């Protein structure tokens, strides 16, 4: 049985399409995109005016917490959160318990994801055994089991030498090395961006240079030995400058930025009575010049991707002293509205560029199928309703956790439906009614 999405607004940067087309889906794949396609026995599906069909969004930086921290999130709840937020695929970080540093952990994650059958899950393996920074994990084995990249995320790649060896070794498998760029000695026990706000709130600072030193290191090492260096959750203008300089020199460096880093600043720490632990993340919310630089990097193309750094934590963990609460916020269910509202409606970028940032480029960086609606591509589609306003309700999240600074925000831009492999995995019935793709 085929499904024909009839005369829908397609935004597919890979093919340059941005207009009304028919999309034919057969056997879980996009089999044809064109105008006035013959129905040929396919089920014809129409979408309400204003809906936009894009290649499925890929969040290349999420923490699914399983195995080991199922009280925060599971692969089932995390992928449900993903499809609800418009993501057809996620890449999950290895800082689980145990760390994803062996094929058996990777296989477990893949198996759980297949059982759940919502978003596609691409595990990211550890750079080093136990992410301890001492010896390389069995990267070929991780690759064979399904890992698409390596990182010691949560921590930086411990030393310049380890970064060198990781880039050299991973290049054999065409895998990027993703680094949580951070100079540990400069970070110390900092909990907030080192600036006027933390200075006056009496919170220990994490200076911007703490990140850019790590970015500079990675760029320099990649320049020396080759390989693909990817900067996780970039947050400072100095880091962006280092990435741009590396790209200009021909270094294979890519980067992602989170919605919270291009929407919020350190000012949030003093708002709502101050010290809301949902404003605590690492890297921390930076200053306005940094936020503005992230927006500019998204606009001018020097930032490759938007990723959420989805970091669910139990409410009890966040209900602690600011300096003791864990870093991180949930991101999957707020990202698309934030992007549409703050980037597209704000006039920073158009929809094609947004699709590049959320789909085309994450697929390219991680070497995934997807990112385009070419004939034969997986039928992973994100359907947006850019003009529909939504109000963020943390209590309604599909994620197991509620830790967000965006609770109560009203934003213009909604996810209308999410399709993975031709299957409808999420529909906002208020927008699309009852869709039937079976």
């Amino acid at each position, binding site marked *: 049985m085929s499904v024909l999405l009839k005369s829908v607004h397609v935004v597919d940067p890979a093919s340059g399409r941005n207009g009304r087309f028919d999309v034919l889906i057969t056997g879980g794949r996009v089999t044809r995109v064109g105008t006035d396609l013959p129905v040929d026995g396919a089920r014809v599906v129409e979408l309400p005016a204003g809906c936009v069909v894009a290649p499925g969004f890929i969040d290349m930086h999420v923490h699914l917490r399983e195995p080991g921290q199922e009280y925060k999130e599971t692969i089932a709840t995390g992928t449900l959160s993903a499809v609800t937020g418009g993501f057809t695929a996620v890449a999950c970080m290895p800082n689980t318990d145990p760390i994803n540093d062996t094929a058996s952990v990777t296989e477990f994650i893949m198996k759980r994801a297949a059982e759940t059958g919502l978003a596609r899950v691409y595990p990211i393996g550890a750079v080093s055994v136990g992410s301890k920074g001492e010896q390389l994990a069995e990267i070929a084995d991780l690759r064979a089991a399904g890992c698409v990249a390596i990182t010691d995320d949560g921590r930086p790649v411990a030393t310049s030498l380890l970064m060198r060896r990781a880039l050299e070794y991973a290049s054999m498998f065409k895998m990027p090395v993703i680094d949580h760029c951070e100079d540990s000695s400069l970070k110390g026990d900092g909990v907030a961006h080192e600036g006027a706000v933390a200075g006056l709130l009496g*919170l220990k600072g994490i200076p911007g240079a703490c990140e850019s030193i790590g970015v500079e290191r990675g760029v320099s090492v990649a320049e020396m030995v080759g390989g693909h260096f990817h900067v996780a959750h970039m947050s400072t203008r100095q880091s962006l400058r280092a990435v741009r300089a590396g790209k200009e020199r021909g270094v294979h460096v890519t980067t992602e930025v989170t919605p919270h880093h291009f929407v919020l600043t350190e000012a949030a720490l003093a708002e709502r009575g101050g010290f809301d632990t949902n404003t605590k993340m690492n890297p921390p919310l930076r200053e306005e010049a940094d936020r503005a630089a992230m927006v500019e990097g998204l606009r001018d193309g020097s930032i490759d991707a938007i990723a959420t750094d989805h970091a669910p934590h139990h409410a009890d963990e966040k209900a602690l*002293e600011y300096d003791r609460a864990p870093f991180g916020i949930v991101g999957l269910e707020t990202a698309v509205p934030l992007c549409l509202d703050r980037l597209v409606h704000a006039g920073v970028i158009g929809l094609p560029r947004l699709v590049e940032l959320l789909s085309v480029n994450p697929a390219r960086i991680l070497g995934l199928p997807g990112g385009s609606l070419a004939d034969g591509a997986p039928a992973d589609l994100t359907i947006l309703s850019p003009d529909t306003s939504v109000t963020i309700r943390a209590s309604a999240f599909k994620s197991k956790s509620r830790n967000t600074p965006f609770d109560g925000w009203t934003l213009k831009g909604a996810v209308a439906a999410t399709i993975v492999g031709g299957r409808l995995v999420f529909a906002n019935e208020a927008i699309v009614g009852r869709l039937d793709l079976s």
Partner: protein
Amino acid sequence: MTDKTSAVTALRSRHLLGIAGMEPDEIELVLDTALAMKEVATRPIKKVPTLRGRTIINLFFESSTRTRMSFELAEKRLSADTLGMTSAGSSLAKGETLSDTARTLEAMAPDMIVMRHASSGVPHQLARICKASIINAGDGMHEHPTQALLDAFTMREHKGHLKGLRVAIVGDLAHSRVLRSNVRLLTKMGADVTACGPATLVPPGLDALGVRVTTSMDAAVEGADVVMMLRVQHERMQGLYFPSVREYFTLYGLTPARLRRAAPDAIVMHPGPMNRGVEIDSEVADGPWSVILDQVANGVAVRMAVLYLLAGGDERADASAT
């Protein structure tokens, strides 16, 4: 020669979380009220019935001697029923969340909670949950509002005014809640504030409050009406913040020679406990300029004023007003 200028008769918030949330007229009100409270200490029977029947919990999650005793004395002089708990460490260390802590306290139905905590912001977090009035007795490196109020009271007592007063605050600026509260209060009241310490111990953001920052102690002290010295936790700092106590004292110790740069009638303050020979020379600490013991005495009066005003002052019979 003390001016009495407060225009308001009640505090706007039912908590005292920090100087950041206070308006100048509220600060005046506390200082004026403290003047009346100070008189109580001169009576043969140093007790008034003002807070009879009120329950105050003193919750010290960080060790404290002088602030805790000062609050206890203030509470007792106002006839409140008080109970105290001192427990170093965090909620986490006890396996309890902050909201559990708050709910447990609420269940005892106190009227006020005086709290100190090693983490910045805890009183603010609890104030969002608790019904009782919360008085911040020092949170991390953030605020210590009653210290700033008693310091202001002491300055006003000796100098008659705060506006235009030249105040130099010297020492470990980065880790000091006393600094942050004092800077907020003094700039609100129109004083001319200079903060001074080694570049390794200057926090960002002070300039945003209109404070002059210098690393030269001579420049800071020059012409000052008030020299306030901050305690240096030298055991923890020596090595990376400054090379040695010896070098620190050379650069930032308050000696009689340095003090001669200040105004002729300058006063010297210190929130205590002092490190003699580290940040302050004994000759200065014990000299005629020193008002350090006045600060201690005034602390009780100022805390009585805060407790009285938060309990409702004259206007409000109960503390239910928000």
